[in-house]
């Protein structure tokens, strides 16, 4: 899609939705307080963030070596590694594997990477049934919607709308209780796990030294997805690799606390190849798909490279005052919030994502909570400068900024302009003069400041 993501319009629509505003505010406040409580328990938190950043940047500086080491160790454990350049190649690899194994149904655990490549659309087109098994993703799939948040994809849906949806699709009564609704889904999906010929998962971390992939979850659906079907296919972006098993001591401390305010998520699966001789369960085949899909371009871009350190915790979303008011859909892309405002222009082009880096007050709350210390505000600023340089800005913007700078270049000019502005200010206060851009936007919600009298520089006496 080459059309610009109109964030301002999407934000306006979100602001006009009282249920969404209330749901988001409640969810974000809750996430923040849960996160803060468990982070406070870790006195060495800042040291861990430094470690995580340094480890990720080291890996990125030696990414080819770590990926080949990972590949060798996955193969040594009996797994098969596939390398793909693009999302389309990844999806067709999965379709091929499904066909080769005559898989008619696939179960999937939650993976932003599979959303990024729109895997389900490919599978449907190829006549393969795919069942989302994460509760939130399952609900979204039933409703035909896109996720509104990495961690709680259905945060924008009320319990009532979920009850209505499940009642319609599963033929169950409209329960008022979250526990009953959940149990109904458990029963429905349990059958799907058994019927599935193939399970597709994402990867939170891939350990180069041991050829192990690590999956973090609460529900147990990833365990089921990677245990019951005969074939397990795991999709990872090239940036997911970390060097040593012991590095997980740090990353598994940072991720659950940052994402959901838990000391540890319900389950963490460490998978090293398929089942071994004599084992009675587990997949017979394990496939790891290592995907580029634009990451190598970001990797080559030194100023932007650090955004590949992201571990997809969602903490930046939860701390962002803009995200809190718009939710994930407004960002028009699978990655939302502050990290999304950086990734979307990079993955989909400055044309498509050109509003996103500007849709921020640069408050820096995201950077403060990022467990891997990505300098998000700085990345947003860098993107702003590229967008202005390559696409130009609106003529109003250019007029205002250049006018400002021209005035400020010269104190005499400033003095003269200051006098004119003071007169206009007085007139504006008496509403005799309609305000030009950007002051017109200002006045929608705010009064102008009171008249100031002579500027400081005129009052100064040594």
């Amino acid at each position: 899609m080459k059309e610009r993501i109109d964030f301002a319009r999407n934000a306006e629509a979100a602001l006009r939705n009282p249920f969404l505003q209330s749901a988001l505010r409640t969810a974000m406040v809750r996430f923040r307080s849960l996160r803060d409580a468990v982070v406070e328990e870790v006195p060495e938190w800042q040291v861990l963030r430094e470690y995580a950043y340094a480890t990720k940047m080291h890996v990125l500086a030696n990414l080819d070596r770590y990926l080949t080491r990972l590949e060798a160790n996955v193969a040594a454990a009996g797994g098969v590694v596939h390398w793909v350049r693009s999302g389309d190649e990844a999806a067709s690899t999965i379709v091929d594997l499904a066909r080769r194994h005559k898989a008619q149904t696939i179960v999937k655990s939650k993976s932003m990477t599979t959303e990024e490549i729109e895997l389900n659309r490919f599978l449907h087109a190829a006549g393969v049934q795919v069942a989302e098994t994460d509760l939130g993703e399952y609900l979204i799939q039933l409703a035909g919607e896109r996720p509104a948040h990495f961690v709680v994809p259905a945060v924008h849906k009320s319990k009532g709308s979920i009850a209505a949806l499940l009642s319609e699709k599963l033929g169950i009564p409209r329960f008022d209780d979250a526990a009953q609704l959940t149990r109904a889904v458990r029963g429905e999906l349990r059958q799907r796990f058994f019927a599935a010929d193939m399970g597709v998962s994402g990867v939170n971390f891939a350990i180069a030294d041991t050829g192990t992939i690590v999956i973090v979850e609460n529900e147990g659906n990833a365990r089921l997805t990677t245990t019951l079907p005969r074939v397990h296919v795991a999709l990872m972006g090239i940036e997911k690799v970390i060097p040593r098993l012991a590095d997980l001591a740090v990353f598994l401390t940072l991720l659950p606390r940052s994402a959901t305010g838990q000391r540890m998520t319900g389950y963490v699966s460490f998978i090293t190849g398929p089942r071994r001789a004599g084992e009675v369960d587990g997949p017979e085949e394990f496939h790891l798909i290592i995907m580029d899909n634009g990451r190598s371009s970001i990797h080559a871009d030194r100023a932007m490279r650090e955004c590949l350190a992201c571990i997809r915790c969602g903490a930046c979303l939860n701390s962002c005052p803009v995200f809190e008011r718009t939710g994930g859909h407004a960002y028009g892309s699978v990655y939302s919030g502050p990290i999304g405002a950086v990734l979307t222009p990079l993955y989909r082009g400055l044309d498509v994502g050109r509003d996103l880096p500007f849709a921020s007050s640069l408050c820096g709350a995201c950077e403060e909570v990022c467990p891997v210390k990505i300098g998000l505000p700085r990345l947003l600023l860098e993107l702003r400068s590229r967008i202005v340089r390559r696409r130009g800005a609106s003529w109003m913007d250019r007029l205002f900024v250049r006018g400002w700078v021209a005035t400020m270049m010269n104190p005499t000019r400033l003095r003269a302009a200051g006098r004119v502005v003071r007169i206009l200010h007085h007139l504006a206060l008496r509403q005799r003069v309609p305000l030009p851009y950007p002051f017109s936007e200002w006045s929608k919600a705010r009064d102008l400041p009171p008249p100031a009298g002579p500027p400081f520089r005129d009052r100064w006496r040594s």
Partner: protein
Amino acid sequence: MSAREEILRRLRATGEAEAPLPEIRAPIRITGDPVQLFLERAAAVGADVVRITSGGLAERVVRDLRRRGVQAVAVWEDPVLASVQSALRAEGVEILLPQDQTSTRVTRADAGVTTADYAIAETGTLVLTCSPLRPRSTSLLPPLHVAVLSRDRILPTLEHLFTDLHVLPSALTFITGPSRTADIELTPVQGVHGPVSIQVYVLG
């Protein structure tokens, strides 16, 4: 050029950058008794945890499972569980051994009984490894997971675990409480896809 070659070439092409790999962090000493901390932290995440002597284990497990109306259990083959297995058999509880644990059978069991290789006190986490005598599904498919843990396997922190752990099985799993979600209006619900409840017996 294959996709592999192309990707690796692109990644190599960007040249060297000075970015040293940090040293692995040494395990930090925690204050207090790790066993006590484990009990607290596991309970905090919704696990039922009791301390018991090895002598009292079998009787206690049988009593607790009977109270829950358990009639069929899937078990791991492990010397620690031998007394439990025989006591359950004596009670007429159906025992499903590893070699018979097909997924259709295990999912119909009322409980899965396993040991735990390690536990992490700081987070209340059990660590389970799989093998031919220790299927993955035992702790996953039945609605109740019963885990027997020796107190000397309780490690204070994650760092302690990874210091010890070098060789990995095909599947190693961290289990922290029962399965859960908060996807519906952020309401916490226990028991989604994995077990609905978990009972831990700490020996010693």
